[in-house]
């Protein structure tokens, strides 16, 4: 009969409509389904039923660890409280960057004339950067990583959209916070390397 298909279809829409309220009621005893981290997780999982909306900006969808936006540089703080860049200005990231949006300024030590293993300045033009993550992937010193911060809208790109070293620099703790698993793994590898090096030195 004509119209059966339509009615079936409308049934599906109705089901979606009703599901939202059924879920809402189910969550009532647990303090509601919105503005709650626990509930958000369920609402955005494969078990999601009914309304699917993230109420940004009140609640934000958590980003996974691998999430990548604009790169940032890592510095460590030594015993004297001085910032030490992990970056050695080796230039590999600038070489591998597909749209070529990384600029690195290197310098020589005025006394010895030798190159200083740290960048004098470091620029990324985020109007060119394609967030591909290759720089972070191939940096041999784990000095450049991909940030999670995506709330970067601005009114003036000429002022705000070339990130310099100051803007890019983040402490190691920040990295450990946003990418704990990667951080732990790298630290482990680093410790192993150190140990192997020490062992070799000893055996010599």
């Amino acid at each position, binding site marked *: 009969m*004509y*119209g*059966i*298909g*339509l009615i*079936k*279809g409308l*049934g*599906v*829409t109705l089901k*979606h409509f009703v599901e939202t309220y059924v879920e809402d009621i189910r969550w009532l005893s647990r303090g509601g389904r919105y503005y709650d981290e626990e509930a958000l997780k369920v609402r*955005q*999982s*494969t*078990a*999601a039923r009914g309304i*699917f909306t993230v109420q940004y900006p009140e609640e934000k969808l958590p*980003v*996974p*660890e*691998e*999430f*990548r936006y604009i790169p940032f540089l890592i510095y460590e703080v030594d015993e004297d409280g001085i910032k030490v860049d992990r970056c050695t*200005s080796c*230039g*590999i990231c*600038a*070489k*591998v*960057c*597909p749209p*070529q949006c*990384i*600029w*690195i*300024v*290197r310098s020589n030590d005025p006394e010895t004339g030798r190159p200083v293993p740290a*960048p004098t*300045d*470091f*620029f990324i*033009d985020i109007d060119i950067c*394609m*967030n*591909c*993550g*290759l720089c972070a*992937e*191939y940096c041999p010193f784990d000095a450049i990583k*991909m940030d999670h911060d995506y709330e970067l809208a601005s009114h003036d790109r000429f002022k705000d959209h*070339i990130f310099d070293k100051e803007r890019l620099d983040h402490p190691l703790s920040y990295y450990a916070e946003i990418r704990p*698993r990667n951080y732990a793994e790298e630290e482990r590898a680093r410790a192993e390397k150190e140990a192997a090096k020490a062992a070799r030195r000893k055996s010599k």
Partner: protein
Amino acid sequence: MAETESTKVLDEIKTKFGDAVSPDEREGYDGYLVRAENLLDFATFVRDALGYDYLSSVTGVDYIVEDKMEVVYHAYRTSGGPALLFKVQTQREKSVVPSLVSIYPGADFQEREAWDLLGIEFEGHPDLRRILLWDGFHGHPLRKDWREAYFEEDQKPFGNRWPEGKVYRIEDKVPFNKNVKYPANFTPEGWVPEGEGTLYASLGRMEKSNGNGTGSEHIVVNLGPQHPSTHGVFRMVAELDGETIVDLKPVMGYLHRNHEKIGERNTYIMNMPFTDRLDYICSMGNNFAYALSVEKLMDVQPPERAEYLRVIMAELTRVVNHFWAIGFLLNDLGAFFTPALYAINERELILDVFEAVSGSRMMCNYFRFGGLARDLPPGTAEVIRDLAFERLPEKIDELERYLTENEIVRVRGEGVGVLTAEQAIGFAAAGPVLRASGVPYDVRKAEPYSIYDRFDFDVAVRYNGDVYDRYLIRVDEIRQSIRILQQAIQDLPEGEIQTGRPQYQVRVPAGESYGRVENPKGELGFYVISDGSPTPYRYHIRAPSFINVTGMAEMSRGQKIADVVAILGSIDIVLGETDR
């Protein structure tokens, strides 16, 4: 077996053509070199006697050192099997090659592209106009001696990024402060833009008078490039008799981003994130095809686990794409947004998986030569399992219940935009468009790549070739993809995900290779020529969205103007790939 067959073919060709056709004996190259005068005969022979009825790809190559232009043709049999390559060479200045449109109508747009970007003229082409750039553009940009305004160096990495590192906006370095370059002695005074006269002239207009002082005339209507139903910046010029389409010309290039020119300057690994931006709904599939073609040249094999993950990602991509395509086809049919919203829900869940493994929802950049960028993070395998075994089967049933029997969908879809099997093969249509016309051709079965031969699945096929069947075939394909997903996630082995050490500078031996995959929109192929340097010498994309619209005019003729958007929606194009 393949050996004996190819020798048999070679013998046949030898006896028939003698010297006019010779095997291509350059190091790393394959196929036959055909003399331009014999090209038409040879192509007819290849199609009729040898059965290579599907001309998949036409590529122009500029060999500047040898002072030659070459056109490379990849022909296949729709019954399956490897390609037959044939090539024709001509001089660089005033290059002329006979057009194959009369034998393979699917060569139409591809020849126009070669004319537009490389300046190879195709003699006998019915409508040889620029296709991606506009009429009146200066020069043919893919020629090796053509430089753009923002040109810095022939190959990346650019020297001045490091070690001096003076940051600048490239605009500041060119006199017009914009990405523009004019021919010498050009002045805008007294100059008249070429306009679109040739485009409208190509439509062939009709005027008729009734003899009683009244008359009628066909009218021309432009849809796009800014039109809500053209899926981006696509434009169609339709000639109408009342509401009926008499003729239709697709106009594209509004998103031409010079992918190939940039790709020939990039190193191999740099192209990987750029491929994401081709068909931006299916970035994993694009990665796959590009990785395959470079791996062929490098002769590396990814490890088991990586192969399985590749298949999982490719099939998830297919599900994503088909959900999206169905949602927006329904949008075009007038079901404003509700089906699309439901489809996008499922897409979002799969994108969460992509984001977790690769870091980005859309631009995955996940494949590497000989493996993958990283392994699955903890918990993701379970999410994929949930999706494959519970969520997606349930949702695809729901989608079918929602739409398949809907009377409006049927009325709008059945018998609209029909493409017969012969036409589909002729136009080199690929993917769901081809299979909805009754041709069971799927690269995953016809020439299995990666580990697709291990899975148990069927090639979906439908026989009416209309909009409704193109909808149904996508539903069928989602079901098949879910089958593959279930098998793959069950068998997923442990182990490495990368052969060798990850490298940012790979060494690729000289030669040519064509890697193709069955992308959700059809056969996606990358034709890569390496000359041994860190950057590809030629990097060409056989883009299914681009070639599938070749048949658009044929499908639309005689239909109502309102059906054109439905037909376009059923072809499912993505402009990033159409225009590249």
